[in-house]
């Protein structure tokens, strides 16, 4: 079994290239569908759209479903959703997301406060103006784009050969797009921290690609396949350490912000395995094959 997989991986690298590109196409389809259905290619949360979040930390006897129906009853016109934040399997806080701003938020807060007899220190409130939310979204996207271009430039200058550099850039691009599509499917709403996570992902995803390309292109020991396996051994150790740290954090961390960063990095690092060891490896091997033929 292991031998068979190995032989497929070593010999059928051209047909295998279909997998990453298929993933990329499916991801683009998902994102287009999301855009067509909601008018937005990602589900934007309060920090990127405007609105407010009330986080109740003294949960006590409050039940989040009861709270949801209570609020729906009192504010039938408002868009309110109640969710729980858990850490180590226990509910640590209840968050109320709504489109309420300015004066409306005070009404909402006071309703919850009197209903459950809360003190001022038992909850946190975050209010984001909608125009600021929109401009935040636009700007962080611009930042993401600029970051990506700068990264591409660095890679080009670093390797000074077109095809391998483009392969690294394509791997990072595919990683971001596929991760975004998978993230959309989870139904979580994207916050500013989430965009920061995508920026982190550029860094993490390019690490393994640079390692791979350097080993394959700039070393002379062993065959190409041996060098690829060497890079893979190092790269997999890297991904494994990061992924295991992320899984632990996902389970225990209480902060919404950090949890979202972890979710995105988790998806991204898994996708990166495909993009690095199938897509990038495949393109590098095709490139080296052509190069030797031409000689």
């Amino acid at each position: 079994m292991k031998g068979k997989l190995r032989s497929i991986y070593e010999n059928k690298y051209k047909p295998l290239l279909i997998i990453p590109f298929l993933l990329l196409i499916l991801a683009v389809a998902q994102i287009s569908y999301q855009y067509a259905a909601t008018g937005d290619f990602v589900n934007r949360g309060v920090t990127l759209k405007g609105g407010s979040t009330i986080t109740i930390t003294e949960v006590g006897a409050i039940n989040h479903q009861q709270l949801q129906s209570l609020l729906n009853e009192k504010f039938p016109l408002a868009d309110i959703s109640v969710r729980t934040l858990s850490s180590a399997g226990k509910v640590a806080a209840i968050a109320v997301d709504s489109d309420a701003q300015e004066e409306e938020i005070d009404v909402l807060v006071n309703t919850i406060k009197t209903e459950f007899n809360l003190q001022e220190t038992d909850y946190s409130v975050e209010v984001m103006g909608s125009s600021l939310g929109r401009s935040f979204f636009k700007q962080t996207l611009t930042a993401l784009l600029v970051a990506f271009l700068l990264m591409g430039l660095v890679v080009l200058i670093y390797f000074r050969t077109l095809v391998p550099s483009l392969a690294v850039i394509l791997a990072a691009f595919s990683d971001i797009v596929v991760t975004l599509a998978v993230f959309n499917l989870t139904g979580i709403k994207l916050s500013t921290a989430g965009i920061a996570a995508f920026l982190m992902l550029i860094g993490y995803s390019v690490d393994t690609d640079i390692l791979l390309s350097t080993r394959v292109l700039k070393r002379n020991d062993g065959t190409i396949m041996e060098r690829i396996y060497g890079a893979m051994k190092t790269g997999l150790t890297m991904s494994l350490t990061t992924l295991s740290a992320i899984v632990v954090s996902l389970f225990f961390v209480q902060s919404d912000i950090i949890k979202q960063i972890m979710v995105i990095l988790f998806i991204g690092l898994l996708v990166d395995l495909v993009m690095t060891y199938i897509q990038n490896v495949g393109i590098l091997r095709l490139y080296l094959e052509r190069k030797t033929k031409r000689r």
Partner: protein
Amino acid sequence: MKKLMKDIFLNWRVIILLVFLLFALISIQPHFFGNEGVTIRSVAVNSSAARAGIQNPSPTSSPLAKEKIISFNGEKISSVGDYYSLSDNLKINRTVTIETSENIYSLYTKENEEGNVDLGLKVYDTPVSNLRKGLDLEGGTRVLLKPVDKISEEDLESTIGSLRERLNVYGLSDIVVRAASDLSGENFILIEIAGVTEGEIKELLAKQGKFEAKVGNETVFLGGEKDITYVCRSADCSGINPQVGCSAHPEGVACGFFFSITLSPEAAQRQAEATGKLAVVSEDGGSYLSEDLILFLDDVEVDRLKIGSSLKGSATTDIQISGSGIGATQEQALTSSLQNMKKLQTIMITGSLPVKLEIVKLDTISPSLGKEFLDNIALVGFLAMAVVLTVVSLRYREAKIIVPMALTLLSEVILILGFAALVGWNLDLAAIAGIILVVGTGVDHLIIITDETVNGEVVTDWKKKIKNAMFIVMGAYLTTLAGMTPLLWAGAGLLKGFALTTIAGISFGVLIARPAYAAVIEKLLKE
């Protein structure tokens, strides 16, 4: 063994890392066994504490340098609970002795508006290091304000000055007020106040910043351009008063300042009417009018000036405002005098804010949530580190690799925290996300270095091995750097903390800690 240790600790890369670590620890100054007393967060204006001479802490002083209350009526204070249980049971018109890290004060208790005894002090548990906790972790309120209309840089600056002044008048000193802008050139004002609830800050911002000057009960002029047409801020008509200069004072040295203002004819007329009725009294060798000119900001008295007898009943439009500042040394007195002058000038110029501001973002974080976050993050950080070390242990099964790796990662965290303490950053959740990223790339890079050197090419030349490893690490570093840089400017600077922590942390890692790791494992594994 001894020679090996000597080799390691005399390697220049290791020495550089150790020196930086030492600096980091000096700037963090961790107090591992807790710290004494409670720290003063703010002193309310005209409160018992302020009258006894307790000063508001300066917002720029480092957390450990702030004044701490050590004992209260002879009883040792070791927590916020201790302090409030004593201060809440005070009776009116008694003397309370408070010993702080700087001085011993006698406070005379009085009632506040609600009929309770209030000393006017807000305190918090004394920090155990010089790290500043951001709002997310400490609890407090963050407001992002946007001018309704486009305003000039100058107006923005004076608005910020005026807001800061106003918040100071209310005894809130643990505040950040700064300008922020975003990629599309929009201006914002960011205010962060620790330990204040949303209601309080909204109330403060809703106030107009009304400045009034009264003689007796009559208002003679208001702040702003209508009554005060000109406030001199140039050297020829403002500064330290040459005629008064500095003189000895019970608390050290007092220095006098002066500046001139020009009133509108109407305001001058009102002043003439108000002063005309007053008697002339002699005091300290000078002759003054029987009532003072009292300056109010939002109905709170901020200053009281004597009126020279020559001004009685005259409708002069040019008035000289004078006052003084007190300090332990002449230099301190001069600084404090000039500060007081600037404060008064700001109040007079911007009696009300030059622009209308709207709140575009308002966050309140409950202090208990902040505390929970911090404990939780410490737990998660510890667990994540343990898991990472387990994975690398399984892979390498060699203490000579694992121990240096763990120490390198730990020193990277210390370097970031040391830098944060040194430059006075607030550590918030975004900064912690940055630290996670740094440690994450740290592990990755250490694995690259290890594999390149230990399992890498069959060359015996360690220099070349390390060079190979650092080539990959540098490439990864430069791309991450490229990814973070644009965030420095996006989104009104709210993600700046994240970007800065990451950039600083990764730079320390790649330039200082990770090369030292390479040097150490080279020495350990060379044979």
